[in-house]
């Protein structure tokens, strides 16, 4: 089958049109990833938290971490701005709130287990994986230790085993994935004495959270942190004071991290696919140009050679002609001279 020029252009045009709106179509669509249907999560209700550090203790025990420098019943550390570490997957900090001089509120920090995790998006060896239980899993066996995940995490959660000489790992809360698989609750949730932490299906947790806000509008900020932040997280937060006062970022937006880069990254396959074609094409074109140049040169030489021969012949002819003429004139002159010589003695004789 032969392709006419017109048909080729039609196809090319259609292909271009399909490519152009590709990016915006994702954003405009009402279909976006809302997490795994039965995905689990934890609801942290800051108004119920009493800052007892039991969750830190629970986490420490289920993960077999070494005992902390300050024991878990020392509550003075709550006022420090602690962050998670490779031997403390969760910490609770206490914050002074604006509504009164001596009122405080607590915030628990751990991996939020994003629905579309930034750590997994940046990992080029796929060490992170969002599982259907809700946990973001980490596979140390493939990790190359680039720590891109630490840079990418909007919540500054993953930490690195800097003190390990061999095979250091990135460490963060696992949502007690191994325990979940056994049908047990995450360590922190199980030990919480006030149910400030409850584990369950994320969708149910959202309903519970909304219910609490609706029933006690005077006690809660009308916002569930984590419902939409960075595309939604498996951990959800309720608070009686603005989340900013608990040191939580309120400027994260609702886009998952990977959407910020998907546009640029989606161009990669196209670039990879197009470069060989482009380069080969350029090579082909330059080769062809070379060949054409050679051919032209040959032609030119041929023509010039032909021309040269013709000209030489012409020159020869003219030269010959000239030579003929010169000879003729010479002969004529010689003849004339001879004739003249022949005539003149006769005249002299006659005179003398």
């Amino acid at each position, binding site marked *: 089958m032969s392709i006419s020029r017109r048909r080729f252009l039609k196809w090319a045009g259609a292909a271009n049109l399909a490519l152009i709106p590709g990016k915006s179509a994702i954003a405009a669509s009402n279909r976006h990833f809302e997490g795994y249907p039965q995905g689990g999560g934890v609801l942290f209700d800051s108004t119920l938290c*009493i800052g007892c550090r039991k969750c830190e203790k629970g986490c420490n025990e289920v993960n077999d971490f070494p005992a902390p420098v300050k024991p878990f019943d020392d509550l003075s550390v709550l006022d420090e701005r602690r962050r998670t570490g490779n031997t403390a997957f969760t910490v609770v900090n206490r914050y002074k709130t604006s509504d009164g001089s001596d009122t405080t509120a607590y915030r628990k920090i751990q991996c939020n287990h994003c629905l579309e995790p930034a750590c997994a998006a940046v990992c080029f060896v796929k060490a992170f994986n969002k599982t259907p239980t809700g946990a973001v899993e980490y596979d140390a066996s493939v990790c190359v230790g680039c720590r891109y995940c630490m840079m990418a995490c909007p919540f500054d959660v993953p930490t690195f085993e800097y003190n390990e000489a061999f095979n250091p790992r990135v460490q963060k809360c696992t949502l007690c994935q191994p325990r979940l698989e056994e049908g047990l609750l995450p360590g922190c949730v199980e030990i919480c004495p006030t149910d400030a932490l409850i584990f369950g299906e994320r969708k149910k947790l959202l309903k519970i959270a909304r219910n609490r806000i609706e029933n006690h509008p005077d006690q809660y900020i009308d916002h569930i942190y984590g419902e939409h932040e960075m595309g939604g997280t498996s951990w959800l937060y309720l608070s009686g004071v603005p989340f900013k006062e608990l040191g939580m970022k309120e400027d994260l937006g609702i886009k998952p991290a990977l959407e910020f880069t998907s546009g640029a990254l989606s161009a990669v396959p196209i670039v990879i696919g197009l470069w060989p074609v482009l380069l080969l094409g350029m090579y082909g074109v330059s080769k062809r140009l070379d060949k054409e140049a050679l051919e032209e040169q040959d032609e030119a030489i041929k023509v010039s050679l032909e021309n040269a021969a013709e000209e030489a012949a012409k020159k020869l002819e003219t030269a010959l002609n000239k030579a003929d003429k010169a000879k003729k004139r010479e002969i004529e002159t010689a003849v004339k001279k001879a004739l003249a010589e022949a005539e003149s003695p006769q005249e002299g004789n006659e005179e003398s």
Partner: protein
Amino acid sequence: MKTKKSAVILTSALLMLFIPYSFNNAISDTGRSGPDVLLIDAMKVFQELERPGVMFPHDLHTKELENRGNDCSVCHLSEDGNLVMKFARLKDIDKEVTLDIYHGKCITCHEESYEANLSTGPVECGECHVVEPKLTASQKLPSFDASLHYRHIKAGKDACDNCHHGYNEETQQKIYTKGEEESCRTCHGPETENEVVSYRLAAHQACVNCHQNTADSGPIACSGCHDAAELDKIEVVENPPRLDRNQPDSTFLKSFANMDTLMMDAVPFNHRVHENSVSSCRTCHHENLDKCEKCHSLTGKKEGNFITLPQAMHDEKSQHGCVACHAQELQEQNCRGCHVLVVNEFGRDTQDCKNCHSVSLELISSLKNDQGEVDIARIEAKAARETRTILKDVPEKIDIGTISEEYEAVFFPHRSIIDALMKGIEGNRLAKHFHQGDNIVCASCHHNSSDELLKPPNCSSCHLTSGGKEAVNIPGLKEAYHQQCFRCHDAMSIKEPASTDCIGCHEQK
């Protein structure tokens, strides 16, 4: 604009350089915030201010004049024996005239005082017209509450017309009708409009002049009424007698005009009791002292912004209505302990409606006159005080030992907690009204069991000792206890024992 401003600053700065002398006896009154500091921006009635207004320390001037044996008339003119609040003029007639009055009088006096070697103030432009003044105003607005009002009535020998007046449009005269007194703010708004002066000016004219012309009366200096410390010194009359403006003792708030439009039972409203529990009439009568239904009719009127009577009373935001004001009372420390636990959503239960809508139309129509209304409301109010069931047969203490793990069980003083709560209710008339019925005080802890409050089910019938954590929104037994105790203690500001102090409640095992 900015360049203009900076030009002004630059010029004043240059001028300052060429001033060969400075006022060494000028009163240094810098960096102060006082109740007597007022902003002079009189020129703004004519045009936009060219220079910043002048922060003027009024009491400083009054005191200095007094020291020199002068009185208010140095600065203020009088009209009909009353001081005019404006500076050295009766009215703002002309821009130039007003400008000259201020500049002429202020600067002249300051200069003369300087010559006479008396305390004096600035004379240069930039010294009075300061862009970022160090003098700032900090007036506390006095509250003309029932106590202060009563003291004025007593001092004025029941002559309400000393202050209260109406206005006759035809004769253009102030009139007074007994029983039709209004709040000042009914007519005197935030700004002067036509002949009606602003509330601020009206109050100053009335108060200052009366205080000045009456021996042994209230303060004249700014600080007397606007300084927090001075205000605290004002004697408070406990339980002042009731104001009389022909208002009813009690009335019915009806959500129906007649039988055909019957909607809800009427609400007996005890006007007298509410008078004592609000700071002033304006708490409820926010625009004027007319009856609510004059503007808020059952169908809505333009005067009432088309807010109907039921909407006005049930609005959960407006403090002028019943529901929002009552809900505000729940923030009381005595009330919060329970109400932080129970859902305070108004109207969730039909009992909520019946709490207030308790008098049927038949009953009202059987009454002959207003007196009857008063009587029935009194009956209702009395009933409200007496229908509370006396709590009997409640356990003295409860031993919650079933879930004891790390610590010993708590000795839970069940009876004394109830007694404490009941005491809180007892001392509050509103609380008493809303805590009628069978042991309703039990419901804050024994929630979701309102039908069985006399013998509530065990907590553990819903709150499981294990597995309560699954997201069914029912805490486990231990967690439920902790939540209940901690939230109530927090709300009632019970600091000891702290929530994290386990052995404050439990014995160590």
